[in-house]
């Protein structure tokens, strides 16, 4: 039985904002299936009582003082923007919730 279906891959592509073609979906479904089957080996490690590590090192409490630092100029901030209008980033229409 495959670990992941083509529909699931299509769902992942949507969640990841990747417009994939049908051929790509087929291709990735096969590859991801093999990879997932392989990485599922992590389940073989008995680790019920082991705490998960989200970080490489156990550091805590790293903060910065509430001090203002120099910001970019608007020119710098917008320098890489694909489109600009009125010192703002111009973006295509947003499919948001109706407000």
């Amino acid at each position, binding site marked *: 039985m495959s670990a992941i279906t083509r529909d699931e891959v299509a769902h992942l592509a949507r969640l990841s904002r990747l417009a994939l073609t049908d051929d790509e979906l087929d291709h990735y479904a096969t590859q991801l299936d093999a990879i997932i089957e392989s990485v599922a080996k992590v389940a073989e490690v008995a680790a019920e009582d082991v705490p998960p590590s989200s970080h490489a090192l156990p550091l805590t409490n790293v903060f910065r003082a*509430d001090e203002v630092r120099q910001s970019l100029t608007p020119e710098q901030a917008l320098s890489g923007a694909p489109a600009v209008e009125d010192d703002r980033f111009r973006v295509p*229409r947003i499919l948001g919730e109706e*407000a």
Partner: protein
Amino acid sequence: MTTTKMSYDEALDRFEPVLGLETHVELGTASKMFCGCRTMFGAPPNTQVCPTCLALPGSLPVANAQAIESTIRIGLALNCSIAEWCRFARKNYFYPDMPKNYQISQYDEPLCFDGYIDVEVDGETVRIEIERVHLEEDTGKSTHVGGATGRIHGADYSIVDYNRAGIPLVEIVTKPIPGADRLAPEVARAYVTELREIMRSLGVSDVRMEEGSLRCDVNVSLMPRGSSEWGTRTETKNVNSLRSVERAVRSEIERQGAVLADGGRIVQETRHFHEDTGTTTSGRSKEEAQDYRYFPEPDLVPIAPDPAWVAELKAALPELPSVKRKRLQAEWGLSDLDMQAMHNADAIDLVEATVAAGAPAADARKWWMGELARRANESGTALAELPITPAHIARVTELVASGALNDKLAREVLEGVLNGEGTPDEVVDKRGLKIVNDEGELSAIIDEVLAANADAAEKVRSGKIAAVGALVGGVMKASRGKADAARARVLILEKLGVSE
């Protein structure tokens, strides 16, 4: 879209509401949550941005210590437990106003949890339980261009300003609040009011709803009377004033009541409140359930507040507003009703400051709740926004007490101050608003008035002392209000040879 509604009373006859409130408070830190950019409201677009808050490739967040401290103080003020160890988490979803396409937030490890506050509504104390208080970052702001109304729907494109992106945001979530019953709208409002005052007393935020530094989402569900099973809830966003909190709850109760009475189902959805109509409309229903794929933020290390430090913060909390109100009420000897009226008018701090500046509590209250409340109401501004200070009011009460002003003149002085003519003393000078204390001048005015009102004078002389009122009125009129009415009365009676 038309929405059928049921009257509030009818809805409440058949159903019982359950409330929930999620409040976002923008902290008033000097710099953003994870970078050193300023947080000034209203700055020109994209002038308060840097690689981190623009999510430029390679940039990293570093948490603002002051924001952590403020959040813990908020938690303590809301009687929460403070986490011994917790992490930030990434909430993943794509949206153009969120530069990283994930929000740094907290998931199952909030900084503060399990608290409560008590609010008073109609003389009853209602305990609101707090589920969690956590820290996250704000998004940028989109302006929608084209289309009919400047709304997102139907716009041609949008332009985005990221100045607000990364400003620290504290989210305060209540547990479900059953049992508010008919008072649900008032309870919701009282809760948000109380939160706002707590934030102010802590000095952690300017909590201006109109500028969005305090934002509220209102959850409402209804269950049939006699049932114990909660109904499906809706989440109403865009509730931007205290009054709107109350109206949004009321409106949702009425709408849901009508749907349910009609045999319909409530859809779990986001709704938007409209200030103009006082109603809510449905947000776009989501085609698929959001999967935020939360996971611990690897770019930030866990927070483990030192318990001794938390204890210090707790000990150093200011007197909380509800405690302070009780103390002041006792000190000022006011009834519950009077105190509640002052609370509703946001006058307590002003009166307190006026008393601190030397005025008697009764006088301070009289001015703020009377003349000034009327003025604020007329001009549609908040009491605290009037261009007059507690010190001004204290000075006016002092001038009245010394006899230099009477009530009428005092009102004129206040008007002058409000008009920007200067301090009370300056207004008195400029407008010549001093009580006529010169006995000779007053005597001359009285003589004129007696001569012009011989009938009234005769009545008084013949023992109808009540008729002296008309003569005093005449003197006040002739002096254009500057005479000391009490002294004028004594002199009139003297001149007419009548004693009381």
